[in-house]
């Protein structure tokens, strides 16, 4: 089942990449490649392949896109300000945050979202603890709860609905 979903996804991607289409070899080569990918990497693909068909997840996924881009834009203006400021005001440090997300995919997306938004960059993930490099640490950075609220909370509520 997983392999079928992965095959459909990779073949769809191939069709998009070779968009104007062309002669039959294009489609045959794509099908062979997609089969190979599905065969070799199917085992490491998501454990709930049917969740791709769940409209509620897609709905929250689409809601998440503008939210994410808004945070990303703010992040960039913030970093741009620090870059152009004559004194280069940074107060960096690596802090710990906790996440309530359980699945690997959700954690991966959380880590990616953190990396692309306000002054934060995920360094490592260990079970439910994320180590985050922060360009402007809150206080002395020891307060895990406050860090979690500032960095993770705004994404978690969306990601939980999309991936879990």
């Amino acid at each position: 089942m997983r392999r079928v979903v992965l095959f459909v996804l990779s073949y769809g991607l191939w069709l998009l990449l070779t968009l104007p289409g062309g002669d039959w070899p294009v489609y045959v080569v794509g099908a062979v490649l997609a089969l190979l990918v599905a065969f070799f990497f199917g085992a490491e693909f998501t454990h709930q392949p049917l969740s791709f068909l769940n409209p509620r997840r897609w709905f929250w996924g689409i809601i998440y896109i503008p939210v994410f881009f808004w945070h990303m834009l703010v992040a960039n203006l913030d970093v741009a300000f620090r870059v152009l400021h004559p004194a280069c005001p940074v107060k960096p440090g690596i802090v710990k945050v906790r996440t309530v997300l359980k699945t690997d995919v959700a954690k991966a997306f959380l880590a990616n979202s953190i990396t692309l938004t306000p002054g934060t960059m995920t360094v490592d993930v260990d079970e439910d603890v994320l180590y985050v490099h922060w360009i402007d640490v809150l206080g002395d950075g020891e307060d895990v709860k406050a860090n979690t609220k500032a960095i993770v909370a705004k994404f978690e509520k969306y990601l939980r609905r999309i991936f879990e």
Partner: protein
Amino acid sequence: MTEVTVVDVIGYIVIFVGVVFDLLGAIGLVRFPDVYNRLQSATKSVTLGTFGIMIGILIVAGFTPLGIKALICGVFLLLTAPVSAHALSRGSLRFGAKMWKGTVIDAYGKDKLGGPQIESEEGETKENKEAEDEVA
């Protein structure tokens, strides 16, 4: 020369904004004090900048083969750039690249590497000054 429409102009503006963010990211790469701050600048600004360029191409080209390829390119960039930044920063920490002396806290070093990886002596300051002069 074909005529320039409003959509084209919007697309070019988006491309321009993307290029500006790329430039800021490059300046940050020079100005920030240590590996980790530089990665911040390199991932955030450059990812949004390049993504902006891709979206600009999509707007100019429309949903033609070119535009759709640009969109796929942008999405892959969004998915992979943070992963590479994550791998680089974790690798640098494990390798022993010290953090800047102004660093407030290093929870990762404390938990995993037996002590914060923060440099203590002066030495970064001089280089920092030079970088600032170059920018000015």
